[in-house]
């Protein structure tokens, strides 16, 4: 299990727990259950957890799939520096947030799921993992014809057909045989 980044699973689990807390909280509050104020608390805690967990951290190995629209929350989460980077803090934060919701039946499932997420984060922290933001890549200007790496091998003006050599098929080998030809005038790449 050497390469598993537990934080990635902890993240999914915590996000799910946040949603479960919100749902349970809404049911208890809307239904005006006994101790419904704990439901109100759960909604708030759930929203906080979802906002913290929505931006997925960067994997240390391989590329990471961003969640849709996560870059806005990434900026916010990044602001807290070590508080959000460190997984020990996250583990204990989640555990702490989970406790009050454990006193209300409607949210107790959220508590249990969040406690498990906290445990997985603890495991991740012990293994030295930490959260790093996924930075947006600098925008590449789309180059028209950017995939054409070599100038045409036989540009006009061309000699008459008999003297003309057949251009080779580009499928079999990607390189035109014989190397780049001497061009009668200098060729420059124009980016439009």
């Amino acid at each position, binding site marked *: 299990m050497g390469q598993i980044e537990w934080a*990635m699973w902890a993240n*999914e689990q915590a996000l799910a727990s946040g949603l479960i807390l919100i749902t349970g909280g809404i*049911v208890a509050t809307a239904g005006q259950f006994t101790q419904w104020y704990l439901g109100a608390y759960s909604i708030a805690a759930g929203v906080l957890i979802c906002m913290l967990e929505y931006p997925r951290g960067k994997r240390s190995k391989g590329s990471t799939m961003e969640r849709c629209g996560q870059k806005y929350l990434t900026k916010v989460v990044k602001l807290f520096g070590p508080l959000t980077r460190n997984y020990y803090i996250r583990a204990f934060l989640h555990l702490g947030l989970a406790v009050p919701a454990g006193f209300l039946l409607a949210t107790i499932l959220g508590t249990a799921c969040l406690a498990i997420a906290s445990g997985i984060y603890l495991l991740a922290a012990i293994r030295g993992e930490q959260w790093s933001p996924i930075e947006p890549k600098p925008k590449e200007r789309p180059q028209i014809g950017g995939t054409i790496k070599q100038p045409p091998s036989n540009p006009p003006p061309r000699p008459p057909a008999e003297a003309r050599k057949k251009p080779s098929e580009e499928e079999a080998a*990607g390189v035109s045989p014989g190397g780049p030809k001497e061009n009668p005038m200098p060729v420059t790449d124009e980016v439009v």
Partner: protein
Amino acid sequence: MLKKAAWLVLNVFLFVHAFLSFEKATKYYYTRQILGSALAWARASARCLNFNSMLILLPVCRNLLSFLRGTCSLYRSTLRKQLDHNLSFHKLVGYMICLHTAIHIIAHLFNLERYSRSRQATDGSLASILSNLPHQENDSWLNPIQSSNTTVVYVTFTSIAGLTGVIITMALVLMVTSAMEFIRRSYFEVFWYTHHIFIIYFIGLGIHGLGGIVRGQTEESMAENHPHMCAEFFEKWDDPASHCKPPQFEGLPAESWKWILAPGILYIFERILRFYRSQQKVVITKVVMHPSKVLELQMHKHGFSMEVGQYIFVNCPSISYLEWHPFTLTSAPEEDFFSIHIRAVGDWTENLIRTFEQQYSSVPRIQVDGPFGTVSEDVFQYEVAVLVGAGIGVTPFASILKSIWYKFQHADHNLETQKAGHAALNFDKANDILTGLKQKTFFGRPMWDNEFSTIATAHPKSAVGVFLCGPQTLAKSLSKCCHQYSSLDPRKVQFYFNKENF
């Protein structure tokens, strides 16, 4: 598509039928006085949960399904296609289970709250009279909450239904979070091991209804106290002179086991079958280490027969006794061996490649289960086939291309394909993993619009099948191009997009 529509209709039917039954039946009249409609919502979702829990095991019985496919050669392509989309159906049923679990839990939260309130009520209403029916005689109580000093949390965790409910829901949540595509693709072991807690889910589900906590009036009681006649005179029930006796109740017997027993047995049978098949000896005839860390294994197994684009599950006991990992077959059926190409993507694959790299130690033992099918066979039905594979996604098409070559060699008349174009996208690798050439098979990312318009011009009257094994973003572009470049005239060029599901 038809199968999914039928499944959806059945779900709706079962839900509505159960809902109306519990909402309208006289048997539950008194129960509804306390619980209201939450009873019907809980029971209807329970019915759907039973139905879907029954179904979810079936699509993953791949050996049994392969056997079915083999024997039902009558309905060849349609049945095959439906059985082959097993994984996506499994996921769909899984999501439906999640939805109904949510409905079921929310409904029961209301039920418990209402039972709790009416137990504590002292207003002498019908609900409170019903709640106070004694627990001692004949088990004929209605409200499962016995004391007015207890909390719903306590009641939940001390009842069979409550405790098993919480446990199996947590198992469900863990199964879902570890099965998210990102986790599954990046850390397969997490998914594989965690998903086995479905065993807890099924056992818990079977036990869940044993407490008989859903109560309805007994037949005999309805003769002495019919709700429509006696409900309004509830204050007089204890009066010996009145013709309305206090109602008696019985618990609904557990029914989940009836739904899940047969699939459970089938699944156990499937696992035994897998174990038996995996014990058949696999001989590794050739090991090739390709550049960019791709391992090719050529193997032989007695009785093994495959079709194009199928996949196998591989186990290597010296790395892990329990793990089975899926790989597409890269050999053609016409060859006298079967092969897989393995890329290092995680713990298990890295270990495997490292083990095979050590040339001085003996070749490790391999177990194989399969082959299992996909829809690749359709390739041969199109006059023109365009196969797009990204990265390791070229593997199923390797099998297809080789097979086409063999079929050409043997002048196979079933082969419709006249022309096959293969775009292998190798972005980062210095060498082409399939041909081994230093130069990539294709130079740069194809501009799909150009490709499609060229093909449309070259084959103005053909049906062109476009097959992809690669990432979702690529699927979107290709699918869009297929729509764009298909002619409005059905006699002219038509592009059909097929995505491989791995």
